[in-house]
């Protein structure tokens, strides 16, 4: 690890002031991803700002919805009665990720900022990686591409976002609250993470030095009718090959009034399945209709050398997640 200076801050102002001192400074919360990347030599901050003492670790009601402070641990978010009662899909997504030890350390803000687990990004002994070193190329495209993207990739990058939590937040239409030198901003979750395009070095739309303060969840009357389904190489403690967060609103005749579907493991950001959602509106919950909706969403999918299986897997995972969600009680 490269040497760095370290400071503990007590206020948000102090944090932003410290961060503005150097472009090579980083905030550290749980540190589970940042410290690992520092050991690998991928991240080389010269100054670490420990934000764990900031007053951002509360979960509270907010206009019928819920505000989760950026420093709430993944464990505390998943366990909290407000989350378990109102947004069980988020609780399920969080406990599907990592291990208990990591969830105890990891924060909500940090989870949003997890970097890709693309092997070629994570290991600097591969010289080609446009995300790590813009303009060097993409080793993944001629390498092992089993875990890579099938939707929204670019010629420059085929990495996927590894977060389970963010997939549920996408289906829930969460808002990310941030603050910085130039004031506060609210970023809809769909505009927070980005597709790689020509500049895959940017995972998200945060401006330099901005600090996430909370994640806000809107009131959704039917959010209990939901499910998070994660498919992976082993039963526990592995990143998703494909995952789906599904929330569905049904009337008395089992006709779909509204559906919210997001996919994980398939793209550079949590993939909101707008096309599938639209194809379901006003239709009965029948397997053929679900299949058709899944087909519509995955029509644009383009496999890499080793991951054509993800296309069919994504369709089946979506169908099963919707079926399971429909069986849950709405309230």
């Amino acid at each position, binding site marked *: 690890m490269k040497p760095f200076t*370290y400071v503990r801050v007590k206020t948000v102002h102090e944090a932003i002031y410290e961060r503005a001192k150097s472009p090579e400074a980083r905030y*550290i919360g749980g*540190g589970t991803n940042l410290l690992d990347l520092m*050991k690998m030599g991928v991240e080389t901050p010269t100054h670490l700002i420990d934000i764990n003492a900031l007053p951002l670790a509360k979960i509270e009601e907010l206009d019928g919805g819920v505000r989760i402070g950026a420093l709430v641990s993944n464990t505390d978010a998943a366990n909290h009665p407000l989350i378990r009662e109102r947004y069980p899909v988020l609780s399920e997504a969080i*406990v599907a990720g990592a291990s208990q*030890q990591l969830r105890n*350390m990891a924060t909500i803000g940090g989870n949003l900022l997890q970097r890709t687990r693309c092997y070629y990004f994570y290991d600097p002994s591969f010289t080609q990686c446009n995300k790590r070193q813009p303009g060097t190329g993409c080793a993944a495209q001629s390498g092992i591409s089993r875990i890579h993207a099938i939707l929204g990739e670019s010629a420059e990058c085929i990495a996927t976002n590894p977060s389970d939590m963010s997939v549920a937040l996408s289906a829930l239409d969460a808002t990310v609250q941030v603050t910085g030198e130039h004031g506060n901003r609210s970023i809809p979750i769909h505009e927070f993470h980005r597709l790689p395009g020509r500049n895959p070095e940017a995972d998200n739309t945060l401006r330099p030095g901005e600090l996430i303060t909370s994640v806000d969840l809107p009131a959704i009357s039917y959010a209990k009718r939901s499910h998070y389904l994660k498919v992976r190489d082993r039963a*526990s*403690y592995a990143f998703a090959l494909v995952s789906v967060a599904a929330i569905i609103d049904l009337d008395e005749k089992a006709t779909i009034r509204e559906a919210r579907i997001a996919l994980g493991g398939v793209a550079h950001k949590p993939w909101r399945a707008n096309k599938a959602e639209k194809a379901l509106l006003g239709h009965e919950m029948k397997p053929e209709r679900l299949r058709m909706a899944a087909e519509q969403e995955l029509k644009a999918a383009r496999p890499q050398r080793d991951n054509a299986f993800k296309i069919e897997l994504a369709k089946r995972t979506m169908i099963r997640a919707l079926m399971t969600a429909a069986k849950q009680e709405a309230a």
Partner: protein
Amino acid sequence: MNSDDSLLGEHRVRRRDFVAVALVGVLPSVVTGTGKEQTTNENSCSLSITVNGQAHQLEVDTRVTLLDFLREHLHLTGTKKGCDHGQCGACTVLVNGRRINSCLSLAVMNDGSKVVTIEGLGSGDNLHPMQAAFVEHDGLQCGYCTPGQICSAVALLEEAKAGAPSAVTKRDASIGTVELTDDEIRERMSGNICRCGAYVGIVAAIRAASQGERA
């Protein structure tokens, strides 16, 4: 035996001490195992920490992980370094009652914390009930992952008692104590890898310890 003098004055140098001395050698700002402060620089930071009931106040290099601090500075070598990337769980310790991977936390981030390592749970003839259960049920073979497994398992019992859900907990389970089925134990222990494959004994040990606790 933590300064160059003592190294030169001793013929028999244990590997552990040699590593500690070597570390101090390259990082002049790092304190020695006895807590004596050497010169400080801008890449070190103060740390107050309680480990197994004993308070320590010192200055450490900012790069030192909690794991390396425990092993190389306090010589508490019960906590093991497996992968050093948060993937194996061998370094699991309890910080303020919660289990974490000590390899993915900087020592300086644990200022004011209370840490319990395997040495703090029990030793010799005075074993923690979870340690005794691992012995009783053959929850180990080579033993390298065992301190992490046991620290993890001790926390697991508390988490289930407090009603914390896992990925296999039924959603409609009321927010009360979670019953520790074998599936629950396996899921909740998935962050601790055992390359010898002693999982059957590990699950049996945790099951027994949880039942013993209830009895």
